[in-house]
């Protein structure tokens, strides 16, 4: 078992011990009368466990993240330049060093060689590669003496780091343990301390989500900046053609992709908004409780279908059906020649619209239900029919919320990938014909990044610029949607 896991187990055992000792001590210092304690014994125990485990585990985590980085930097400076083969990089050599070091670790732990013997190893006398292969560690080429030396250095420094880690963390846990157990007296406000600990946990969880978002934006931003260093931004934003060419000198303009994205999204919304809205009106205003009880979950099942399955539906069912209607000349239903392949804007748009129906209907249903019953009663009491009430009172009152729901659906449509990959084709062009194949931003990101890619060429980096633009676009839509929804909410609160 490794040092780290032993250390973690030791800390946890100490924390458990602290829990019981502290709660016992709290009761005994109160003379066995729980009522004299400020907090319940559980809180004294939790406080002790918290102070034993959390600082120690926190330092351990930071140490584990920092140590390999520091050790590697030390080792890197010792690797001579001549060791780096033509066309390779220092990173590859370093990974060799790491592999040899790990292999030697296994050699020692399986007992093939002792610790001292590994230190005396020499590339001249032993075939290191064969030795390592014997314990299951594969090294790409013969091990060079410098690499072996670096690996041995690596092992030594890692070992030393680990000893220091134990020397620092164990006392830290012990200090926390001792202080918190000693503090377990009736006057100590353990409950408040534990609550503050819980608060810290909640803050940590919340900030993690926000930090991740910021991290995503920054990683996209840096790669996009790299892209704009290699490719002119005027071509990207205002050029007219998308023709990536891995030999270089490509046309990389977002406009044809943006057109495809918007066109498909609009068709999807034309399908999803009326159907979803009518479904929501039926469910919230007309359906009895029994119909509602099974129809609503059934509609929401649509939302649980993976989008790739919708993509298959587009490819094998909707696309061919559309071709049968609009294509095939005399054999087709209408005798038209308008559509040649199953992949088209209309195919993807229709299927994406179906995907968005539960999204629109579920959100609209909630919003329509939020319209106060007193308004409906007022309208019905004046002799309006249910449908007049819905048209003239309920929908106008719910309209801002419904607009918000539609905008959220639109931002999903813009970000949708799988349906478009399978349903819309891969040709980037400006065309107003919904029966043409077209493509979107998301599918181009996928195709630019799949396969053997070199992260230094504009053809690859363009994916990040596309992604960032998409992110800004959907973020803008979401912000507007949330703003509208919030403004609407204030009306009734």
């Amino acid at each position, binding site marked *: 078992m490794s040092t780290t896991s032993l250390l973690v187990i030791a800390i946890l055992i100490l924390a458990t011990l602290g829990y019981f000792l502290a709660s016992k001590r709290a009761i005994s210092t109160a003379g066995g009368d729980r009522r004299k304690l400020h907090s319940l014994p559980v809180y004294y125990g939790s406080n002790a466990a918290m102070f034993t485990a959390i600082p120690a585990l926190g330092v351990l985590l930071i140490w584990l993240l920092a140590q390999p980085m520091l050790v590697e930097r030390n080792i890197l400076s010792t690797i001579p330049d001549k060791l780096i083969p033509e066309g390779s990089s220092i990173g590859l050599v370093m990974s060799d060093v790491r592999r040899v070091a790990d292999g030697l670790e296994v050699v020692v732990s399986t007992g093939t060689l002792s610790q001292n013997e590994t230190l005396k190893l020499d590339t001249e006398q032993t075939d290191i590669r064969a030795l390592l292969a014997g314990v299951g560690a594969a090294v790409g080429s013969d091990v060079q003496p410098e690499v072996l030396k670096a690996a041995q250095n690596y092992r030594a420094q890692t070992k030393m780091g680990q000893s220091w880690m134990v020397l620092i963390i164990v006392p830290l846990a012990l200090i926390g343990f001792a202080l918190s157990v000693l503090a377990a007296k009736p006057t100590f406000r353990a409950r408040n301390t534990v609550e503050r600990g819980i608060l810290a946990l909640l803050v940590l969880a919340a900030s993690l989500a926000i930090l991740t978002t910021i991290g995503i934006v920054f990683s996209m931003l840096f790669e996009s900046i790299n892209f704009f260093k290699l490719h002119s931004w005027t071509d990207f934003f205002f050029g007219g053609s998308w023709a990536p060419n891995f030999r270089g000198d490509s046309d990389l303009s977002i406009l044809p992709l943006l057109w495809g994205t918007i066109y498909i999204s609009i068709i999807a919304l034309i399908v999803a908004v009326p159907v979803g809205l009518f479904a929501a009106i039926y469910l919230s205003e007309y359906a*009895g*409780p029994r119909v509602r009880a099974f129809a609503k979950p059934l509609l929401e099942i649509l939302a649980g279908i993976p989008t790739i399955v919708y993509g298959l539906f587009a490819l094998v069912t909707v696309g061919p059906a559309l071709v049968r209607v609009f294509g095939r000349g005399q054999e087709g239903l209408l005798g038209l020649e308008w559509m040649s392949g199953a992949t088209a804007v209309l195919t993807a748009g229709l299927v994406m619209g179906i995907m968005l129906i539960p999204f629109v209907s579920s959100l609209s249903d909630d919003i329509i239900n939020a319209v*106060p019953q*007193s*308004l*409906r*009663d*007022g*309208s*019905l*009491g*004046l*002799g*309006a*029919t249910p449908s*007049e009430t819905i048209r*003239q*009172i309920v929908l*106008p*009152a719910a309209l801002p919320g419904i607009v918000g729901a539609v905008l959220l659906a639109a931002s999903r449509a813009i970000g949708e990938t799988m349906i478009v990959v399978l349903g819309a084709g891969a040709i980037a062009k400006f065309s107003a014909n919904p029966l043409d194949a077209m493509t979107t931003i998301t599918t181009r990101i996928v195709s630019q990044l799949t396969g053997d890619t070199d992260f230094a060429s504009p053809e690859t980096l363009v994916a990040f610029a596309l992604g960032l633009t998409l992110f800004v676009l959907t973020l803008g839509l979401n912000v507007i949607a949330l703003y509208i929804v919030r403004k609407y909410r204030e*009306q009734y609160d």
Partner: protein
Amino acid sequence: MNDKNIMESHMGTTAIKISARDVQVYYGDNHAIKDVSIDIEDKTVTAFIGPSGCGKSTFLRCLNRMNDTIDICNVTGSIRIDDEDIYDRRVDPVQLRAKVGMVFQKPNPFPKSIYDNVAYGPRIHGLAQNKADLDEIVERALRRGAIWNEVKDRLQSPGTGLSGGQQQRLCIARAVATEPEVLLMDEPCSALDPIATAQVEELIDELRQSFSVVIVTHSMQQAARVSQKTAFFHLGNMVEYGETGQIFTTPQDPRTESYITGRIG
């Protein structure tokens, strides 16, 4: 004042507007109204009083079939308005509600302009020939709602922006605009302050000239002030019904006496 009311109701017409016989209402398994029979006179204010949950609001909502909008509610017995059974299969509840207007406990102006709030009913029922006609209907309704002077300069501003008392008078004007024959009011002053209450009560007294008004109220003082006839409900039964002055001075039933003297409720 009570004496004056009695005098007036004796002098006025005593035509029966609404006649209910053996009305039973069930909410699911709950028997909410038991054997209620009552004759409500035209051009009269009739007050329903009684403790909370006694069924007075439920009975009121039977008179314009608002209970139809509640799935589990079941009404039996006969309720006749102008000698026509309103629970008859041939009666359209939507038409009925145009004839029997309703004002609710909480002011519920639509999120529209003041003008559109009042014009809502007339527009639906096609009461106006043209825009000028509609303007006239709206103005007349707002005048009858005793709110015209306060809102005539801002007819296009939202009805929800008015004060509580103004909102309730707007709702009364809205109900009046469809020219109903009966006006049902479900605790119309419970959300209002005393000044707004006084204004609404004054309004109710004026509305008596043209409609039969039925008002549910928790305030016995209010019932005494505005009504000519009073019905006392208790636990789903109508215990006593008679001239307001008589109910409050010489109640026949011991339960009525206990309630108006504050011993039950």
